[in-house]
């Protein structure tokens, strides 16, 4: 990519490319039928959440299994605000914008709380906490059913295509446009965070907390910020999904869905926003493709029922294991590695945080093992040198 418009650099380059990609995607909607446009809108909504998740895991080294719950927070924030505005007589773009912001704020607040808890913990503990959160979601909606309406969920008012576009495009295409717009703003923001000082600090914290602290990075604040940013992105995704489907209910944001987001982030390549886009498309298209395939085989009805849903989970589970064991850099890793080895000396492993953390993994009772030969002779490198290399 560096060879295209070499004179464009920095933030301006990111913005120009974001604009071009968005226009391409919006132009692409004219080639698709309504169902494909609906799928595209869903994938764009997922992209927001997957982008946030990949930033959180890949850059700050915090694992969340609860991003579905954060999306749900965004969806409920959007739906409740949208309904309140409808009652107040507001509609159109203003209603959408305000409700979207409300959704993002709701998810960010929840993310802030989780981040505050998570800043004191490492990987597996945070994963368990977020797992408990997503499992508790249906309980929350039924305990506070006066607001969240239990399992049934909240329905929102129908948002038609604006009048000046009415003749030109169908509803699904309009929804795809809105979803693409929100997704592009969200991912651009994430890319900017990733490239900026914030991203640098996150990588520092991920690779070696002690070294980061010695270099003046406020570790806890960086972790909380990472979680909040990631939650805000997920909230935008949830709000868009609610806009597209006109409803939000706990049944849509289960543990299985949360794991699907993780699959998308891992398959695409942790830490890579481009990989997140790839992953988001895969988790939308692959289940549908498998269903079509299973339908074409004309299996007995009972077997087909058992396969539906389960088959895609099986495939995703296998993919998750294989990617993690064979190629932790994911699909986006291949050309990322080549590019990086050319320009700097950091390996893809370092990018993913799969080095340097080896010696701080065990508990305090393992002190003698900290300087074990395996971890010192391996790929552990001086973190500050790494940051300098990545800063360029």
């Amino acid at each position, binding site marked *: 990519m560096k060879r295209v418009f070499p004179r464009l650099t920095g933030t301006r380059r990111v913005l120009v490319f974001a604009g071009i990609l968005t226009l391409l995607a919006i132009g692409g909607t004219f080639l698709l039928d309504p169902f494909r446009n609906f799928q595209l809108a869903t994938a764009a909504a997922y992209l927001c959440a997957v982008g946030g998740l990949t930033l959180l895991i890949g850059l700050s080294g915090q694992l969340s299994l609860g991003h579905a719950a954060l999306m749900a927070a965004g969806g409920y924030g959007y739906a409740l605000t949208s309904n309140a505005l409808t009652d107040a007589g507001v509609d159109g773009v203003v209603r959408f914008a305000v409700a979207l912001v409300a959704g993002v704020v709701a998810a960010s607040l929840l993310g802030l709380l989780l981040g505050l808890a998570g800043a004191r913990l490492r990987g597996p503990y945070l994963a368990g906490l977020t797992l408990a959160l997503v499992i508790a979601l249906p309980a929350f909606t039924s305990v506070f059913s006066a607001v969240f309406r239990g399992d049934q969920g909240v329905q929102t008012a129908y948002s038609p295509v604006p009048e000046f576009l009415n003749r030109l495009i169908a509803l699904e295409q309009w929804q795809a446009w809105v979803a693409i717009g929100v997704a592009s703003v969200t991912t651009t923001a994430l890319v900017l965070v990733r490239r900026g000082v914030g991203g640098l600090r996150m990588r520092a914290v991920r690779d070696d907390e002690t070294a980061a602290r010695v270099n003046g990075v406020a570790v806890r604040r960086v972790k909380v910020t990472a979680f909040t940013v990631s939650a805000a992105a997920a909230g935008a995704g949830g709000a868009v999904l609610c806009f597209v489907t006109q409803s939000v209910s706990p049944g849509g944001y289960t543990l299985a869905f949360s794991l699907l987001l993780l699959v998308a982030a891992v398959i695409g390549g942790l830490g890579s926003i481009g990989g997140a886009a790839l992953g988001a498309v895969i988790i939308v298209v692959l289940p549908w493709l498998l269903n079509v395939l299973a339908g074409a085989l004309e299996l007995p009805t009972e077997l087909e029922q058992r396969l539906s849903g389960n088959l895609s989970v099986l495939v995703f589970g296998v993919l998750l294991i294989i990617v993690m064991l064979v190629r932790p850099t994911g699909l986006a890793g291949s050309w990322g590695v080549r590019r990086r080895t050319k320009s700097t000396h950091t390996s893809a492993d370092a990018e993913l945080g799969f080095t340097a953390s080896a010696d701080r993994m*065990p508990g305090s009772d393992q002190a003698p093992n900290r300087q074990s030969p395996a971890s010192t002779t391996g790929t552990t490198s001086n973190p500050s040198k790494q940051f300098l290399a990545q800063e360029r």
Partner: protein
Amino acid sequence: MDRLAFLLATGLARGAIFALFALSLVLIWRAARIINFAQGAMALVATYLAFAVTGMTGSYAAGLAAGILGGAAIGWVVERGVMRHAPHSTPLAGVIVAIGLVMVLQSLLGIAFGPQYRPMAAPFDETPIFVGGVPLLSPYDIFVLVVALGVMGLLALLFTRTALGLQLRASAFAPEVSRMLGVRVGRMVTIGWMLSAAVAALAALLLIPTELGLNPHSTDMLFVYAFTVAVVGGLDSPVGALLGGLTVGVVMSLITGYLGSTVAPIGVLVLLVVVLLVKPGGVFSMREARTA
């Protein structure tokens, strides 16, 4: 008052199961420094096996034995086949691989057996015995308590009094030194996984007759409870798992009894958040900070 006594007693019985499952998490943690998120799914496969064997032979004991042995076999397969090859440099890789395993196992069970709940019969009566007019434990609850505490006692003996236990502890705490002293660390890790998976299978086998029945997702909640127990008790400490398990069991029983079962997951979440914020090392653990 009667209700309180009843809830406390059933909470203890339920808590013993949570403690057993949490102990299995502690075993893997101590052997391999991994929190095994696939523990619930692995135990579930063993439970299906036990269910099938009990269905064929008509004997609960045969099913129980098959489930426990099956659990150990699954532990062996998972450790040798998958977990051993996960990148060990970061705890996240192990967690993600385990989650992939959960998806594979649960979807395979769903394809093989469908989503319906299969009721599992308990070997003993499940109606509570009245002591002085107060309903307390059922015979099955007593069976659960005896088995759970007995297994924990046996494990304690194994770890503190046998040569194998010494090797297991040595390879968990100082793998490099142990290897130099002739301990086959790789084998010890495998044995740790097998022990742990067998204990988890036993816990699931004890729990499921008291629940709705067998379903590809019936251990999801058990894992969350056991994780909470492990966090409350401290992952390094088997005693913490026992005390934490009984605590969580009683707390959950009180919440379910007085506020309704829908609130229970929120109760778990609140408990987790409070413990992690106030005492991240675990209530029953003396350690200062929690490092992954």
